[in-house]
């Protein structure tokens, strides 16, 4: 990572996940999907790989906050799924710090996987497509994001 901010490895106290699990889960899904759709809108995600995500069910669990989000990709948009009728095609589970380290490109997913800090279950090839697609994205610097542009 080129920035000066370093995200440490941490784990929130068990109380947080005990409470978090009891809270409604739909806000997580909405936030995640909004972020992914913003990336779509900026054409950061390659179309050839997006086509491989069509109708797949994804589940992201944040273990130490007790939060989880289920979503799919259909008709050119990511969409939240609130009561999934089947098992996810691909499921990620990790603590919040691991997700933050991944997003900041501070840690490599293989490293976290080797150290058992990131769990990937389901369709392994789909997991690899998602991982490599996110790795290939050239994230714009913060001030280029439309939300922050004035």
């Amino acid at each position: 990572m080129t920035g000066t901010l370093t995200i440490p490895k941490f784990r929130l106290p068990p109380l947080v996940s005990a409470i978090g699990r009891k809270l409604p889960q739909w806000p997580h899904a909405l936030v995640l999907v909004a972020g992914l759709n913003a990336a779509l809108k900026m054409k950061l995600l390659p179309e050839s790989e997006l086509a491989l995500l069509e109708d797949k069910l994804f589940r992201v669990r944040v273990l130490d906050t007790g939060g989880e989000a289920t979503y799919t990709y259909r008709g050119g948009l990511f969409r939240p799924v609130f009561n999934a009728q089947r098992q996810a095609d691909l499921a990620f589970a990790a603590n919040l710090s691991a997700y933050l380290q991944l997003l900041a490109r501070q840690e490599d997913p293989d490293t976290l996987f080797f150290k058992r800090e990131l769990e990937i279950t389901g369709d392994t090839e789909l997991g690899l497509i998602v991982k490599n697609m996110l790795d290939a994205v050239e994230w714009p610097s913060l001030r280029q994001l439309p939300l922050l542009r004035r």
Partner: protein
Amino acid sequence: MPRGLAILRPLTFRMSAMTSLPDLVCPAGSLPALKAAVDNGADAVYLGYKNDTNARNFAGLNFDARTMAEGIRYAHAKGREVLMAINTFPQAGRVADWQKAVDGAVDQGVDAIILADVGLLDYARNRYPQQRLHLSVQGSATSYEAINFCQREFGVRRAVLPRVLTLAQVEHVIRNTSVEIEVFGFGSLCVMNEGRCWLSSYACGESPNTVGACSPAKYVKWDKQPGAMETRLNGILIDRFGDDEPAGYPTLCKGRFDVQGETYYALEEPTSLNVLEILPDIIKIGVRAIKVEGRQRSPAYVTQVTRTLRAALDAAASTTERFHVKPAWQADLAKVSEGSQATLGAYNRPWR
């Protein structure tokens, strides 16, 4: 790219060193990884097309014509080289696909093409006599006779040695050839029978030589059980990790198997090669380039490994006599290692 440009950067050291410093050759599985390698001190990056003409043919990885052109532009603008790996073996009836990849590499203006197949070497040599060619590790040349043959027949200018030789054997090769020698410096280890390994095909009918991938993801299943994670490759149980045990890549060579009633890593434990400790020796014997494994890894890995090896190489160059491996370098490399451990591999074996 003219080599002169690359010499400008570590100028201070190149003037003082007795032997020239090996090039640091780093992996690029994507454009951000390529830029990370260049920005953190790689002298060269290696990459491949999004297809089975290279041995890291994984879904979503690698370059198309557009990203490759941009990557080459980026690297050349900063005076670094781009090497293209076309290091799988042309499959029956599809030789033209591999030849087309060679044509594309020449068109794009890469500094060298890394080839393994002798037929393809012959094609490249005859069609593009000016193009610089490297012999891939997949070409499995472990003796100077094999390397000199490739020089004589195909004009090969550099050979990447398989990770099976001791340091003394590497030196023996270097003394008996004028072909530049490149060795691996860091990265995941497999059984290292490069270019000749069919373990993946044994399990799933596909292997690096044929489809460009070892243990392709579509055959891999990570199965979460209470208190353990099971890894299966095309249904074959490869390993079972307890919740606190480190995981490795799902390949047969890194599995734990029941051998006469005992279960253990029968071929090898998940581990990474790390040559920091013998870096001055590698420089002294005249190795021309040090390669980092890991085109399948993320930009974060490329950043960490490139930065560390650059620092170590520059340190080894300026004070060759008093080179000390900094604990921080080892810690940074250990962190990204498969199996969270490292070895000198074959380099420091007392036997041959």
